[in-house]
């Protein structure tokens, strides 16, 4: 599998460029979780919150941002510290309006097969922000002793 990691770690910062290939997602997410474990981050928040946030952001970038175009790339910027993890996922698409994403838990939407990814990111990461173009999402996960549910928004 052609992940072609372009890691350069410096003071907890790293960047990674991925091809638009869904098979790379699990590999990257697991390595990020491992990185968090190595700096003592709460394993519950890595196993669920970080996994959800990063998996869904990468999936959206590849499926909807880059529209499965294998020639387009997804860029990850990540900053790890014992206190928080900040990750920016950027695709090469035209972007979207995150305000217009419907709530997938309403009676009207709950039987729909799609539309849960952004909701799950917002529920499980402590801060989520999109750039003006809508092709980059910035996510923050704060370390803490609590359970897996995000303690801030």
């Amino acid at each position, binding site marked *: 599998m052609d992940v072609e990691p372009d890691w350069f770690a410096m003071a907890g910062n790293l960047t990674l460029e991925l091809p638009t290939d869904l098979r790379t997602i699990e590999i990257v997410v697991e390595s990020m979780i491992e990185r968090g474990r190595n700096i003592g981050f709460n394993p519950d928040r890595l196993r*669920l919150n970080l996994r959800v946030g990063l998996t869904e952001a990468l999936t959206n970038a590849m*499926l909807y941002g880059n529209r499965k175009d294998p020639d387009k790339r997804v860029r990850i910027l990540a900053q790890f510290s014992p206190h928080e993890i900040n990750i920016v996922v950027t695709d090469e698409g035209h972007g979207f309006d995150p305000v217009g994403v419907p709530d997938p838990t309403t009676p009207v939407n*709950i*039987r729909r*097969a799609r539309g849960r990814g952004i909701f799950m990111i917002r529920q499980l990461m402590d801060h989520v922000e999109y750039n003006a173009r809508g092709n980059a999402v910035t996510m923050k996960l704060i370390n803490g002793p609590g359970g897996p549910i995000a303690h801030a928004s």
Partner: protein
Amino acid sequence: MSFDVQRVDSVTVIDVKGQLIVGNRQELKQRVLDELEGGARRFLVDFAGTGYIDSSGLGVLVSLSKKIREQGGELRLANLNEDLRTLFELTKLDTLFHIANNRDEALTSF
């Protein structure tokens, strides 16, 4: 991800092993649809060997449940770990599915 399919009385039981995510969800969907087309109507997906389901995997379960109901059948779930329970509760999909604590409970409740 891999899965085993077996028949227990009138129930088609699918054991999912590994993560059910965007990269592999279609394999599970197609296998269940094949069983449905072959006449199966009662389905149990056992997640005892599953650590994680992403939004695409949840979407496949919603889609399959709808298709099975349209044929007069039912899809039930069992053995969700704590993280998976949390995801079903967050998305309120715990209100849409019959979720049993274990396989025996699910099979006897059909």
